[in-house]
Each structure stands twice: as structure tokens, then as C-alpha cells.
């Protein structure tokens, strides 16, 4: 019970997963996200949307009269899917690159160059560069391409951290013992490196999920979303609209909302903050757990 962080965050995580999968079927969640035109109070006054938090609208409603709480719960699945996809692609590239860099000097140089060049690029600049390129903007696979861009953005950083960790492990005396005992490179990797490196990677992955969600939230504020659609207008022009339910899309009108309809941005950022906090706490708890299990002390941050 000492590792309370792990326990509490596990419960939070379960609650989150519950909302992702069972949330849409809960009684207080409006599955169709129907728009409410006007609400009449008991005193006979009329309230036009956006409706402030009140009975029937626990977190208020947005500009179309759609319940914010329902939107958040319905959007959870999509948001987390994007996050998981980005992290998955990122580590799919980073792990082989890091392990390759450990054994091959050439790959290591490549990795360092990648990391150094990317360290000159603030993430939001980099993403906003790509989204306007026509071949991404019009591509039917735009969502996938943006996920790829988001993944590549920090692949170098992640690979570098894993590589450094492996190098630090290499210096430990027990590795020498393994070599003296006649371990083959493959055997050494499986039995000596992997048990130390794998927990580290798991913690990194969970931390990265928080980071990606945060980046998505930031991008949402500057109107960069992962999915969008073109809708024709009366004038013959096409409007780029966003049909997604993902959380960051609810920041669309944040600069206006924050003055009078503060419950909209505040609920969304609250949901995002809770989720990120859960991920980070879970990673902290896991780290403590692995440290105890493998009796490694903490040498890196």
C-alpha cells in the first residue's frame, strides 16, 4: 500500500477507461448530442445557449446548446485514440532506432544528427508548417499524415533517451560479469539489457501519452486539428469545418468564450488536465514499482 501513487492513478485510469468505453451509454450522457434551442427556468425566464451549468446541463452547454459533459465523454474515445496512435508510431520508429544506435555507430551518428536538428524546432512551429502544405491539407489520409508528423516530431528525443539509458546500463558491473560468463550478444541483450530497459521504455511511453495530449491541446488553441472536412457554402466557396468530437476542438472559440462562457474552455481544459495528471502520476507510480522490483536506483530523470 506504500505506493499510493500507483494505486490512486490506477483507479483514475480505470475510471477514465470506463468513461471511454461505457460512457456513451450512461443515463446522463446525451448520446446524440442534440442541440437545445432554449431552456425555460422555473421562474419563467428563458435562457438561450450557451446555457450556464444548471439542472440537465452539469457543465453547461456550448454555443449550439449541446451539453458539454456529454461532448467531453463522447469525445474521450477519439481523443485517446489519436494520442495512442501518435505514441505507437513514435515508438515503432524510436525503439529500433535506439537499439540500432546502440550496436551500430552509423545509426548512432544519424540519431544524434536527427535529434540535434530537431532541437532547433519548437514543436508548434513545426506542426503548423506541415498542416498547410496542400498535399497534407487535401489528402484523404490527412489525419494519418498529421499523426505521423506529430510522431516524428519527438522520435529523436525519445530514441536518444533510450540509447543513453542503454549506454548507462552498459557501464554497470553486472554487464561485465555477463560478458565474462560468455554471454552471446543476443543472449546479453535479452537477459541483461532488456529487463532493465523495458520498464524504462514503458514509463517513457506513459509519460509521452501525457505530452502528446498536451501538445494536441495546445494545437487546438491555435486551430490545428487532426481531422477536418470540407463543406460547401452558398457562395460556392468551401468551408473547412471540423466534425470531430476530440477535446482540443472545443477550444475553437476560446478567446471569446473565456470572458462570458467560461464553463466551456474550463471544462475541457479540466478534463485534459485530469487525464494528463493521471498519466503522469501513473508513470511516477510505475517507476517506483519497478525501482523496488529490480532494485535499480534512479540515475536519470
Amino acid at each position, binding site marked *: 500500500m506504500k505506493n499510493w501513487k500507483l494505486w490512486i492513478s490506477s483507479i483514475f485510469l480505470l475510471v477514465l477507461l470506463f468513461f471511454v468505453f461505457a460512457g456513451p451509454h450512461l443515463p446522463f450522457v446525451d448520446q446524440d448530442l442534440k442541440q437545445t434551442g432554449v431552456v425555460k427556468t422555473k421562474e419563467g425566464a428563458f435562457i438561450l445557449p450557451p446555457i450556464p451549468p444548471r439542472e440537465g446541463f452539469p457543465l453547461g452547454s456550448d454555443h449550439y446548446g449541446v451539453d458539454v459533459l456529454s461532448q467531453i465523454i463522447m469525445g474521450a474515445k477519439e481523443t485517446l485514440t489519436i494520442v495512442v496512435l501518435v505514441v505507437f508510431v513514435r515508438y515503432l520508429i524510436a525503439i529500433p532506432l535506439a537499439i540500432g544506435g546502440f550496436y551500430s555507430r552509423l545509426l548512432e551518428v544519424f540519431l544524434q544528427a536527427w535529434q540535434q536538428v530537431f532541437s532547433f524546432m519548437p514543436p508548434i512551429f513545426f506542426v*503548423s508548417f506541415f498542416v498547410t502544405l496542400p498535399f497534407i491539407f487535401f489528402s484523404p489520409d490527412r489525419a494519418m499524415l498529421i499523426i505521423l508528423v506529430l510522431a516524428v516530431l519527438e522520435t529523436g528525443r525519445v530514441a536518444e533517451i533510450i540509447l543513453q539509458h542503454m549506454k548507462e546500463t552498459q557501464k554497470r558491473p553486472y554487464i561485465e560479469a555477463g560478458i565474462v560468463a560468455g554471454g552471446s550478444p543476443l543472449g546479453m541483450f535479452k537477459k541483461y539489457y532488456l529487463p532493465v530497459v523495458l520498464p524504462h521504455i514503458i514509463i517513457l511511453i506513459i509519460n509521452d501519452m501525457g505530452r502528446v495530449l498536451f501538445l494536441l491541446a495546445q494545437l487546438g488553441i491555435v486551430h490545428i486539428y487532426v481531422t477536418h472536412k470540407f463543406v460547401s457554402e452558398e457562395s460556392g466557396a468551401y468551408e473547412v469545418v471540423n466534425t470531430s468530437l476530440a477535446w482540443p476542438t472545443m477550444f475553437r472559440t476560446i478567446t471569446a468564450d473565456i470572458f462570458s462562457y*467560461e464553463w466551456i474552455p474550463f471544462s475541457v481544459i479540466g478534463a485534459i488536465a485530469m487525464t494528463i495528471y493521471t498519466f503522469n502520476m501513473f508513470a511516477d507510480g510505475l517507476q517506483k514499482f519497478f525501482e523496488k522490483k529490480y532494485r535499480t536506483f534512479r540515475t536519470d530523470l
Partner: protein
Amino acid sequence: MILRSVLYQMLLWCIATTIFLALLFLPRTADYTAGPRGMFISAKYDYSAQVHVQQFKDFFKYIKDNKGLGTVYNGHSLNENILRTFKKSMLITIPALMIGLFLGIAKGVFDFRIRSRRGKLFGVRTTRFFLSIPDLFLIISLQLLIMEGYEAGILPHIKVYGSEEPSVILLDIIFLAIYPLFYIANITYFSIRDEQGMDYIRTALSKGTSSFKVLYRHVLKNCYVKIFSHTNTITLYTLSNLFIVEYLTNYRGAAFFFYETLASPAIFRTGQQFEISLYPAAGYIILFTAIIFISKTLSQIAKGLVSPIERRESS
């Protein structure tokens, strides 16, 4: 030693800027496939290396012809305009980074000294907590609190939105400094912890030096190397965050305009080409990467000056 690493960083800076510009000058013309009466069906994009190279050539020719980046509508030269907005951004970025770095180290030392005393809840736990929640949440909450506080009559009228208000500049500095501060505090705490049990600390203590002096004179000096190697992370983060903070407070700095030059259109017509203002964007790119280069160089120099080990090696 220092000179060599500075030259190396400069080379990297040139490479990174070239890659950035190459991305910026990617040809952005799309071929539309239109249905009857201009109905949008699809758009195709063909990359042509020739156009790409031509864009580069045009850019350098343009600079040569105009002796700068040209003029904008209000008669000011674009150079002046970019520099003015850039200065505005730096007015909030540099203080934020300094506050983040120095207060962060102070907070880390505080966390370490209080770690097993009463009030340790305000130590490393607080730091971890603030690192774990996104600063976006804190920014929005703070803005709301200030506004609610005024409505409730507790706070005087503080402007949280605007471009020239001193209160906005102050708030922006605080917003930008939140994450670097706690990040550096965390790094400082753990690097002090890692130094524990080293021989030099025992030697210093056995000679009768007070633990306070040992911490500041001996331990921290060894920690600076680790701390300064993270300055790039916080600079990068702060520049990225500048977009958000400037947008949320309507502060018209460089990031705000840089975003505007790049923003994707909300409405388009069939056949419309996605022109973005290339030249201002190019100007901003060079300046922003320059800031990262300067921060990298400064941290290299600081490392060399502060660390006892590096100093010995260079002499």
C-alpha cells in the same frame, strides 16, 4: 574547447535553418479537379524540385534587390516590422526564461533542504504536482480567477487581454515561466540528490565546513553542468508556448504574426492557391532559430565557466 562547440552549434544552426527554409519554400500549388459549376471534387499535389529551387533563388534575389525583406502596407519596412514584433516577444520570453532558470534552481535547493523537515509538502511534492498538470490549465485558471476576483470585488481591475498593457506583459512572463521553473526545480533536486555520498562532500564536511556552505560552494557547482544541459529543453518549450500565450492574451508579438503568416485557410474556393507570406515567415524562422542557437551557446559557455571539472580540462 568552448570555441569548438560554439562553431559546431553554429554549423547545426545553419543546417537547421536551411531545412526549415526548404520546408517553407516547398511549392504550394495544388491542381484542383473540379466538377460541374466549380464543385470541389479533389485536389492533387505534385512536387516539383525545379519550382522548389526557383523559390530559393527568388528569395535571395529578392533580398538582394530590396536590401531587406521589402515593405509592408504601412510604409514601414518588413525588417522593422519583424524586429519590432520580435522585440516584443523577447520582452516576455527572456525574463520568463531567466526567472524560470534562477527561481527554478532556488526552488530545487529549497526542495532539497526541506525534504525531511516539517513542511516538506511544499517541497518536491509541489514541484512534481505542478510538473504533472499542463500549464495551459494554470494559465486559463489564472485568467479566470483574475476576472472572477474583480467581479467579486477582491481584486482591482487587472487587464488580462491586450498588447500594450504592462499588466499583460507581467502576466505573460508569469505564464511563460511556470513550466521552466518547475522543470528546472525538479532537475536541480535530483542532481543534488545524486551528488550525495560523494567523497568531496565528506572531505568538505570533515574539514568543518557548514552544510550550508557545502551545498552552495561544492555541490551546486557540480550540479550546474546537469542543469545547464537542460536549458535547451526549456527554451524550446517556452518558444513553443509563446504561440499559446500570445494568442490567449492577444499579445501581438512575433509568434502571433508568425502564426498568422502560416495559418491555414478556413474557407477556400476551388482553384484557390494556398499562398502564404513566405518572406515574413522566413524572417521569423531565422530569428527564432537564432534564439535557440544563442541559448545553446550561452549554456555551453556557462557550463565551461561554472563547472570545476570542465575548467580543469580546458586549461
